[in-house]
């Protein structure tokens, strides 16, 4: 039998049982759509995190106590400002070193208040990280040295406390202490549902008094160039280890952070895709089931075709093509649905969705494979039917 003929016969058979074909396809449609959507979300999240980490600035080295690993608990920091001075000496340029000490605090202005992240920082922060001040100015070295009670607000905090008014020059209270607003950051927007404008920067010295501590949470260093970044990291860790023999330190680059986050998101995407894959598998079982019903229903037709000269292979191919047609039509529909749903998710929720060509190709390939795998048994059964028995079937 010619291939074109076989396709035509298979298509006719599906058309004859429209409702049943449609319902059988639905299983595959849902499975493929789920794979496409979930892979798109996973990929989108990964891309967003990568952009965000890269957006911190180039050649960045983050120094933290403990190890940056998948499964290590965060260590309590023993770093102090004298350690920062030591790191600055290693780097050779204090303006390339930034620090942070963070606490969640309530910030008030008049009758309005908001709970936000308050970070104690050095005046070097805008040079080390990419962070632009939209209005007013940033902290100065003398603000840090004299522990002035001045603050730079994130755009969200500014809007929450002052609405459309200009906050620069106004008073706010952080944890009950009065601060003068000297600047407002340019908005960064949201990423992965986290508002990056929901923070307040104050001098690290002021923060130490306010939070009642002299520790700092972490140090960030902007390396002069990419080539020597690893060596610089090692020197910083060696210096800090000498100062704190009982504590372990890590200096990680953006690439390393990206690697760890990539691992986490990769596992997450894999798990999501596997769950979606299960629904595709269930769809495949449905195809198998319906094909068996179809073979039984058309036993007489199979007998007749055999009587007039169809070989067992001709019959098997006919039913196999029918199964493959079911799943590939379902697969293409599912892809369209999945792409639509992914775009909708990207539009309506903070979760970004990135549609990749490989996920579409994979979904299509898998659905065709499902048709073959789950079509083989019914097709073989049809091919092996005894024509005499088949013709006698009512």
């Amino acid at each position, binding site marked *: *039998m*010619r291939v074109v*003929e076989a396709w035509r016969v298979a298509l*006719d058979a599906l058309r*004859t049982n429209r409702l049943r074909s449609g319902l059988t396809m639905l299983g595959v449609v849902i499975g493929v759509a789920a794979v496409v959507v979930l892979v798109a979300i996973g990929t989108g999240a990964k891309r967003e995190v990568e952009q965000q980490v890269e957006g911190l600035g180039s050649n960045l080295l983050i120094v933290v106590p403990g190890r940056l690993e998948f499964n290590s608990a965060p260590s309590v920091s023993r770093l102090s400002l004298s350690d920062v001075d030591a790191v600055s000496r290693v780097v050779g340029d204090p303006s390339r070193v930034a620090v942070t000490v963070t606490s969640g605090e309530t910030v008030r202005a008049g009758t309005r208040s908001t709970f936000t992240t308050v970070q104690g920082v050095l005046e070097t922060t805008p040079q080390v990280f990419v962070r632009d001040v939209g209005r007013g100015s940033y902290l100065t070295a003398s603000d840090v040295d004299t522990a002035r009670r001045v603050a730079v607000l994130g755009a969200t905090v500014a809007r929450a406390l002052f609405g459309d008014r200009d906050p620069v020059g106004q008073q706010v209270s952080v944890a009950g202490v009065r601060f003068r607003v000297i600047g407002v950051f340019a908005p960064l927007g949201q990423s992965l549902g986290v508002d990056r404008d929901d923070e307040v920067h104050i001098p690290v010295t002021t923060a130490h008094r306010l939070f009642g501590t002299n520790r700092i949470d972490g140090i960030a260093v902007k390396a002069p160039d990419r080539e020597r970044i690893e060596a610089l990291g090692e020197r910083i860790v060696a210096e800090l280890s000498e100062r704190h023999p009982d504590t372990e330190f890590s200096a990680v680059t953006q690439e390393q952070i990206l690697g760890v986050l990539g691992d986490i998101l990769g596992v997450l995407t894999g798990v999501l895709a596997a769950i979606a894959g299960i629904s595709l598998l269930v769809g495949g079982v449905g195809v198998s089931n319906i094909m068996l019903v179809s073979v039984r229903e058309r036993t*007489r*037709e199979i*007998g*007749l*075709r*055999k*009587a*007039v*000269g*169809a*070989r*067992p*292979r*001709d019959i098997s191919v006919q039913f196999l093509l029918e199964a493959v047609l079911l799943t590939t039509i379902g697969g293409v529909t599912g892809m369209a649905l999945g792409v639509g749903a992914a775009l909708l998710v990207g539009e309506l929720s903070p979760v970004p969705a990135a549609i990749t060509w490989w996920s579409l190709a994979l979904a299509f390939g898998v659905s065709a494979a499902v048709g073959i795998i789950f079509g083989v048994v019914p097709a073989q059964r049809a091919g092996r039917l*005894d*024509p*005499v028995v088949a*013709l006698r079937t009512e």
Partner: protein
Amino acid sequence: MTVEAADVTRTYELDGVSVPALRGVSLVIEPGDYVAIVGPSGSGKSTLMHLLGGLDRPSGGRLVIGGRDVSTLSAPEMARLRNETIGFVFQAFHLLPRTSAVDNVALPLVYRGVGARQRRAKAVEVLERVGLGHRLQHRPNQLSGGEQQRVAIARALVTDPAVLLADEPTGNLDTVTGAAVLALLEELNTSSGVAVVLVTHDRDVAARARRQIVMRDGLIVPPPPGQAIPAPRRPSEDES
């Protein structure tokens, strides 16, 4: 081409019990023959017809169709043999529903690898020959019983077979249309020389054949005086 059965048996296994359907049948279908196989139901006549048409294989004995011993043939070879030498007509017509008369008739040519245009031309030609040139695009449910059986006969003829096997071809038809279908088979037998084997339990239908083979309990009943069943010949003497 001849079909030759020599001491053919066929036994079915049903739940571990052997049920003999044919218990040693010998006969020869000659080119241009017109034979009726008669007998009560359960006598083995349908089993014999399936064997003669290459749809089934004997459990014992020798069955040679067109010079080829079916015991040596694989399933695909049997399929090809059926396609090239045998035409089947069934009591229940066995037409594909939702498929036009012309496509039903062309079906055997699909499995011969004939192109669509040629298939259609040949199918139209055969349908005209059975008097259905005006019903080409009709579907089985739009045709009368007699017309459906004519379509089935056209389908059996489209491959120019040597033998036409008809299993109760008038069983689902009224007397008048049944007679017309028989007349058509007889006309094809005389005009184109296709051998016709009719399986029937209707004595009147059987009486129209050139010779009758009467079956009972899986065996051929010796013929009444004046009628003889030709003895089996050796395959070397076959015409094909």
